[in-house]
């Protein structure tokens, strides 16, 4: 019984939140890694692209709520997601046309493109704050829990409860669908294959008659869709605040690099590695250990390795370790 209680406590506080957070990071990291693979630079504006997409979702959700459109137990934001993706796609295509294309034609060095993306970051950040303001916005509605702690206790008779938020369930489901679609697209369709070819060897791809502008356009479209989905899921799960999305940049980059930049599978693995380490290292293990250990050995403190405020430090340390021992990432990424 104690073992079961420990397991439930572990799932409630570590596994479930980490899986949800990991899915969000993985979606974000996929966007970063695709841009790196095709356009060959680290996009500092990615966090703010997520914020922009999520902002449109918030606005559309509010409008839908005001006219009474809803999904019943599911959050209305899911209905708003397609509109948000569309809006975000328009924004990134405009950005590419006005800003990035010029440097692509010049064959500018990657580091110049990174600085350019800093400028784009400023503008997107300003736009988001200009339209919706810098404050916290809540837009989640519908049923709060798939299963609440109390129901679970009644159902199983255990001392520990397991609560799964609807948003956590939706995050995982949507992330799985998005990743499946992405891999189907990359592996089965003609455009997807030309994208992979372009990423592997630009010159060879050009020689075989692949239109680079088309590849780049599709990349941006996919990145916009992934970024918006990640942004909306994160906003649903926590809450929408522009500055938080900027801060997500670090764990997202860490996920992409740990997995191997330019490698989509790696980005997913990296997202979960970062999420699980962040949650396990900042979790206070006292509860779980109390169930598992004999009474005489029960821990007196919280058994928390690091306070939650240092979660950035965790992703950073993992990043450093991987970079020092395996510079191309766990899955083989590319190095420009």
């Amino acid at each position, binding site marked *: 019984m104690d073992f079961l209680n420990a397991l439930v406590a572990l799932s409630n506080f570590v596994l479930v939140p980490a899986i949800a957070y990991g899915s969000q990071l993985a979606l974000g990291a996929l966007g970063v890694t695709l841009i790196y693979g095709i356009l060959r630079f680290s996009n500092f504006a990615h966090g703010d692209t997520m914020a922009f997409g999520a902002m449109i979702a918030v606005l559309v959700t509010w409008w839908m709520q005001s006219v009474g459109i809803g999904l019943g137990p599911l959050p209305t934001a899911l209905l708003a997601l397609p509109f948000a993706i569309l809006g975000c796609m328009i924004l990134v295509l405009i950005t590419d046309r006005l800003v990035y294309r010029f440097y692509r034609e010049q064959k500018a060095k990657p580091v110049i493109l990174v600085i350019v993306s800093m400028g784009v970051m400023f503008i997107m950040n300003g736009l988001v704050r200009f339209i919706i303001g810098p404050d916290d916005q809540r837009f989640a509605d519908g049923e709060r829990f798939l299963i609440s702690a109390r129901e679970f206790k009644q159902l199983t008779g255990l001392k520990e409860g397991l609560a799964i938020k609807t948003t956590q369930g939706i995050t995982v489901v949507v992330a799985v669908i998005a990743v499946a679609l992405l891999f189907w697209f990359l592996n089965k369709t003609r455009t997807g294959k030309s994208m992979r070819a372009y990423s592997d060897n630009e010159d060879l791809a050009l020689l075989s008659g692949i239109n680079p502008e088309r590849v780049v356009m599709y990349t941006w479209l996919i990145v916009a869709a992934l970024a918006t989905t990640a942004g909306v899921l994160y906003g649903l799960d926590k809450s929408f605040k522009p500055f938080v999305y900027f801060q997500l940049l670090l764990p997202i980059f860490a996920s992409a690099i740990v997995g191997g930049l330019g490698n989509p599978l790696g980005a997913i693995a990296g997202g979960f590695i970062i999420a699980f380490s962040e949650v396990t290292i900042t979790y206070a293990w006292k509860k779980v250990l109390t169930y598992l250990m004999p009474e005489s050995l029960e821990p007196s403190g919280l058994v928390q390795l690091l306070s939650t405020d240092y979660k950035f430090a965790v992703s950073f340390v993992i990043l450093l370790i991987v970079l*020092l021992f395996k510079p191309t990432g766990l899955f083989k990424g590319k190095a420009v």
Partner: protein
Amino acid sequence: MSEPVKNTLLFVLVGALILLTGFMQSWNSALMILNMGLISAIMAIGVNLQWGFAGLFNVGVMGFVALGGLAVVLVSTPPTPGAWTAGGFGILLALLLGAATIFAAVMIAQKMPKGRMRTLTMIVVLVAGFFVFRAVFDPNVAAVEAISPATSGHIGGLNLPVLLAWPAGGLFAAGAAWLIGKTALGLRSDYLAIATLGIAEIIIAVMKNEDWLARGVKNVIGLPRPVPYEIDLQNDPGFIERASSLGLDPVTASTLYVKLGYSVLFLIVLLVLLWMAQMALKSPWGRMMRAIRDNEVAAEAMGKDVTRRHLQIFVLGSAVCGIAGAMMTTLDGQLTPGTYQPLRFTFLVWVMVIVGGSGNNFGAVLGAMLIWFLWVQVEPIGLWLMQVLTAGLPDGSALKTHLLDSAAHMRLLTMGVVLLLVLRFSPRGLIPEK
């Protein structure tokens, strides 16, 4: 128009903008812009050393600036009575133990033969070291933080003159930069960027959460200052007499006097650093740095130790940022870790360097002054613009209120547009590198 004339005119233009602020708004705001502009210029010189001279992509400026601010607290505030005996030495011991653990792990990584044995020993050493560290660290921190938590609860400083804190801020930043450089400089440029971005966030997280160090988010206020207090000046009959002879009331005169005092101090530091940076740029060392920047492989073939030189200039540039951070905290009179934001302290400095002209010290200074002026003045200008634009809308309409409220966020938008325009149409900046 010849090069020097154009550059002089650009500086005159910035000077005129600040004077205009003085005439149109108030001399206090003009001096405030000037003071922060001077500090920004020093930060820009630091970033220019790294990016302009050596091509190192450091986006952790915020962290080094914050470390400089921390130095002010640790050097110039009076020590908290009893804090050192209660737990200060214990904390030091714990930190030494932590450092020893990491050192041991690094030694093991270098000395032992590669294999499972090495990995296992390293993990054992690290885990054991971590628990010993926490066992010594936690009770001592609790002891220090228990000392009158409402007013202090930190170990306090060394009670030295505040001007000494400025070089100390540089040293703090240099130490951190050495550690980061040692681990991250061998990596590719984007990785260095991500690493510095991360380290800056961690430095801020440490300063926010380690209350024993500088009270965390509870802030340290009332830091000593190198210039007299306004209230003392206002009570000084000699000062009032001089003020009235200039036709100023004592309150305005005292605030102006204090700000001017800061301006003079900052200007001295800026000129010294600018002179040093110019000398470095012209020296064989500076030429070597640019050679490494332009072609690492060729420089390495000439026998230059690229990684070592990179480490050197990374530490130097970060130290300059640290000095600027210490100066800024002195000017504010308080350390508030919650206010450090990457957009303001890292990316804005980058805009300054790029706009001014990377690789040119005068460009960096000019860019810093100009961009800081814009950063401050875009808000009122944006508000005015919005008022003009929305003049036709009825008062109290939702759109009008929203637009007027959002005018404050115009500055981010403006900075982005300025950066992109300069990168596109004048990528070498206002004063290009020679």
